[in-house]
């Protein structure tokens, strides 16, 4: 745990997440509340996105929704992982980030127990460091899934994450490198289900490496996103999660207080209420399979749903 404090020390603007839980972290009290506070989107909002397709689609959707309300935006695609993005948000390199409830909560507080959406929203508000806030979560959800091929499922008798524990030290898991250290990942699988893998292979976030490795049999278990259309297309088996290791993962905007004014809140709330999981999945497919630009796909969707400049 030494490393964590070291990293905190290295970040000039970092504040320790745990301190925020002592109070003052609740969204509505934290400045930038509806209609007031210190936040202003006048100077424009820089949206950062993580290194996988869907997050870029969401980033451009946020941009479209904000532009529709007259807020200037710029999108910085493909910046890296949550571990890189949140310090960048605190440091001011970016202002807004499409996040996922459960994954964000476990990043901020690895011991968090909330699983229901409302609970998670409160827990998030408590766990967030000073200067950052979450806005209301949207309808769309993209969760983590641990999948195996049908052959592997048959061979090892795998239906749920609990079944993995029966094969201690036999199976290889493939996931993005950061998943090795995450609760919703190797750490949680061990703590909650007692699963010990033979090896953790560092690959990517539901991308070509992890899916390629699963197809080739280089890994037995793969961490993918539930909005990945390849899961159904390849008839991969999603392992069930009887002990609720994987929390709900509704899309939720994470924003710096300095930019969270009422215009931004309203625009993102409207988007959140419109965008469904099915639609988001389809937008991902258009980008990944049809090679459309995430920006075009997002702008089209926004135009079709009335999110345009009046």
């Amino acid at each position: 745990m030494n490393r964590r404090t070291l990293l905190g020390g290295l970040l000039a603007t970092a504040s320790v997440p745990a301190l925020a839980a002592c109070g003052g972290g609740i969204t509505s009290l934290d400045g930038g509340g509806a209609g007031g506070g210190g936040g202003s989107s006048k100077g424009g909002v820089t949206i950062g996105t993580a290194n996988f397709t869907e997050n870029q689609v969401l980033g451009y959707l946020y941009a479209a929704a904000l532009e529709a309300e007259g807020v200037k935006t710029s999108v910085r695609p493909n910046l890296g992982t949550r571990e890189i993005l949140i310090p960048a948000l605190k440091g001011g390199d970016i202002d807004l980030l499409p996040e996922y409830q459960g994954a964000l909560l476990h990043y901020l507080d690895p011991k968090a127990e909330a699983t229901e959406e409302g609970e998670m929203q409160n827990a998030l508000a408590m766990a967030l460091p000073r200067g950052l806030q979450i806005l209301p979560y949207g309808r769309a959800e993209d969760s983590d899934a641990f999948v195996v091929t049908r052959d592997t499922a048959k061979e090892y008798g795998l239906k749920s994450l609990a079944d993995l524990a029966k094969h201690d030290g036999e199976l290889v898991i493939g996931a993005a490198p950061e998943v090795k250290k995450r609760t919703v990942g190797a750490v949680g699988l061990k703590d909650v289900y007692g699963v010990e893998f033979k090896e953790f292979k560092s690959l990517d976030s539901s991308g070509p490496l992890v899916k390629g490795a699963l197809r080739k049999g280089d890994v037995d278990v793969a961490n993918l996103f539930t909005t990945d259309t390849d899961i159904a297309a390849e008839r991969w088996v999603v392992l069930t999660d009887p002990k609720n290791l994987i929390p709900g993962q509704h899309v939720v905007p994470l924003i710096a207080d300095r930019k969270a004014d009422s215009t931004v809140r309203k625009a993102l709330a409207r988007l959140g209420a419109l965008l469904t999981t099915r639609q988001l999945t389809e937008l991902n497919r258009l980008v990944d399979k049809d090679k459309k630009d995430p920006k075009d796909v997002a702008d089209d969707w926004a135009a079709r749903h009335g999110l345009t400049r009046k």
Partner: protein
Amino acid sequence: MSVDWSWTADHADELATLTLSHLQAALSAVLLGLVISLPLAVLAHRVRPLRGLLLGLSNVLFTIPSIAVFVLLLPVSGLTRTTTVIGLTIYTLVVLLGNTVEGLDSVPARTKEAAEAMGTRPLRTLLTVELPLALPVIMAGVRIATVMSISLVSVATYIGDGGLGQLFTDGFQRDFPTPVIVGVVLTLLLALVADALLVTVQYVLTPWTRRQRSA
């Protein structure tokens, strides 16, 4: 594997922006590298004990993987262009410092002595005699550093920058060869054009080397 030409045509604006951003990062690094290496090279040239130290240090820096340098700079300069430029600058030093020292060494001692005998001050000798005579070797270094930087910019795509390098990660994530091929070709073209321009600059800056050749 084939190139989707309609994609290329549709993205002409974006490609131009990325190319310019790419060039800006590389050129900033070379300029910054020059500003740092010139005084250090003079120091290494004059003070013998420092020479091995400085050249050795720049050589060791060269062996560090560039991705690691970019990541290690994150606590200092974050996800910004500054991180990219500082990282690239480190790699220009090995060439710029080495060549500038070599260029200064190549100035004949007699030439310097003659200048001093005429009462020219040391700083003036450096600026008006030594550096101009060292220019061909320095410029050779600038050319190498520029081409190298242009190639290296793309590594910064791992920290969300990287100019044309963004086309590589994008194409990788989406199993889409077109942006990757276009990115590689544009990088090579950029390097070629920059190098040709530098040759021209050198030709203009060092007229005496031409006269010698034609004489």
